[in-house]
């Protein structure tokens, strides 16, 4: 039996179930306990688990991320919440220089089973510093795993896998979509890290996306269907490791690929997907791989500039028409 759950509640279930199952799991971050989470993801968790395991921190991202890393090296399984990934930039030293490298530096002696999680991506008119996506930044780092998903059922299963994973995992959620609802199965299940999901089958073009860009991508597929263009839609779910196999299989069928990615274009996730496909599906391509990204700029405040910056269904449809040579 499945029920409708909002993304925030699905994530809450994932953390709560894992904390019931494993005493070494704890949650730490700004406003996660008494305030029930800045976006209410940890609602009720302080009441259930108490202040030893659901911990409010001061605003000190570098410090508490490092405390998480140390605790993970010493036998615990921290979940470190960042209010948004924009603020995790302060903690990149601990994520990139330590969480990602401890195993290698210690020649396998010290693992770092930690989850860093929080929302990534623009959330309306929040301006330059509060609107960035971080998937491609962190996916660049060997030693880290990166997942990014807004489907409530999958996000729950991925977060549970992340908490059980012996390697550090960065999980990207979405500020705008914490209230986004979906069917979530009852009972215990995991979603493996590193496997993409086909959300819609199609024959004419493959659309690859992840996180909140899945919504305009699915909307575009719907519109295109009305015009007789059948789009297959893939949700990457994991960015590192990247499941290029699923995309290759799809492109063998559709011969065309559009990547929809809120990352900035240069060295973004879309660039990596395009590389993999030209490498492993070159003979199947009937058009150059194309992509729809956030603009190659910072994101200012004014609504006209936000519209210009963000990918949307119209831009995706235009890109699809380019690769399908439809006027």
């Amino acid at each position: 039996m499945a029920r409708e759950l909002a993304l925030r509640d699905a994530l809450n279930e994932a953390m709560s179930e894992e904390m019931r199952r494993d005493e070494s799991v704890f949650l730490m971050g700004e406003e996660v306990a008494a305030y029930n989470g800045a976006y209410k993801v940890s609602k009720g968790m302080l009441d259930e688990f108490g202040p030893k395991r659901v911990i409010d921190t001061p605003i000190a991202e570098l410090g508490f991320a490092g405390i998480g890393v140390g605790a993970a090296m010493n036998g615990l399984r921290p979940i470190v919440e960042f209010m948004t990934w924009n603020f995790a930039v302060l903690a990149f030293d601990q994520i990139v220089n330590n969480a990602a490298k401890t195993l290698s530096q210690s020649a396998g002696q010290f693992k770092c089973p930690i989850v860093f999680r929080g929302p990534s991506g623009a959330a309306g008119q929040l301006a330059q510093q509060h609107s960035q996506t971080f998937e491609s930044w962190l996916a660049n780092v060997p030693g880290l795993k990166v997942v990014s998903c807004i489907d409530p059922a999958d996000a729950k299963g991925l977060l549970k896998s992340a908490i059980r994973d012996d390697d550090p995992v960065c999980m990207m959620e979405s500020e705008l979509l914490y209230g986004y609802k979906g069917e979530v199965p009852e009972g215990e299940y995991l979603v493996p890290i590193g496997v993409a999901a086909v959300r819609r089958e199609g024959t004419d073009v493959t659309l690859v996306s992840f996180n909140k860009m899945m919504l305009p991508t699915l909307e575009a597929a719907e519109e295109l269907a009305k015009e007789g263009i059948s789009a297959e839609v893939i949700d990457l779910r994991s960015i590192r490791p990247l499941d290029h196999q699923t995309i290759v299989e799809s492109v063998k069928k559709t011969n065309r690929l559009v990547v929809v990615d809120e990352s900035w274009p240069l060295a973004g996730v879309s660039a990596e997907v395009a590389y993999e496909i030209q490498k492993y599906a070159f003979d199947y391509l009937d058009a150059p791989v194309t992509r729809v990204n956030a603009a190659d700029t910072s994101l200012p405040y004014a609504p006209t500039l936000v519209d210009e910056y963000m990918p949307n269904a119209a831009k995706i449809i235009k890109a699809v028409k380019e690769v399908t040579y439809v006027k």
Partner: protein
Amino acid sequence: MSTVTDKTKKVRKAGATKYDKEMYLKWYELMLRIRKFEERALMLYGQQKIRGFCHVYIGQEAVAAGIESAITNEDAIVTAYRQHGTALGRGVPANECMAELMGKETGVVKGKGGSMHFFDKSRRYFGGNGIVGAQIPIGTGIAFAEKYRGTQNLCVTMFGDGAARQGALHESFNMAMTWKLPVLYICENNGYAMGTSVERTSNVMELYKLGYAYDMPSETVDGMSPESVHEAVSKAAKHIREGKGPYYLEIRTYRYKGHSVSDPAKYRTKKEVEEYKEKDPVKVTERKLLSEKIATEEEVKAIKEKVKNEVEESVKFAEESNYPDPSELYTDNYVQKDYPYIMD
């Protein structure tokens, strides 16, 4: 060479010093301008004409007023995202501030920054920063440049009680003190960082004591009174201009509204808010103007009228202005004019 003074028990009280009429009227007018401007902004937020974050300064106006009267137009200021009052204090016109809040091209940063990011180079205003604590080293660097260039200017570097827990504060304090930089650190302690009270973030609740670790002169100030703020800032500025290095003031204040517009502020009691409303800097100053016959009722009325018109005019100005053209997305990312953006 420590000049540390322990003021634990002696929080400066309002009314300790008398200033001239002109000063009181200036304070009153600025505080009222900030208050009325932001009350209007909140209404516009309700009508969805202002979007995103909108952190208002309501309750903290005396801090901006007392700082501005004690420093010069050549001095620099940098602060966080709760910054409308600081910008108005610097003299950024209400028109440009309101247009910015609405994201219009006539805003102080052409509609690109919104509520958190006003900047005005001509007024030595180095901006509102959205990353908690980031402006602490930046303000230190602005001061570094003043010293490097051999000016007499200082940089007022403002941050919240929450920001005081960032490591950047300690790194900055240490370097500023070691290099005797002309920086005035001001912690606006309004008791809360979002839903987290000062008590819940540290053993050290007397935030001014953080300066002691670096032998920095550090004091607490009553932030509900422009007199107290002015007096403390004047003294600190004198010290800094004498080349003696940084100074740190923890100014105790209160925000009457939630953290941003969507915060119901359930983490504090009605009683606490009411107590602080008794100390409302705008009302207390107005009462003082009249009861101590510093100004006549007509004079106070005239200021109210002036401020009201100014704020209404700013709304009209902002409403009648245009949003920036979409092509503006590709300006101001690089100084280089023909930067080759990826446009695919």
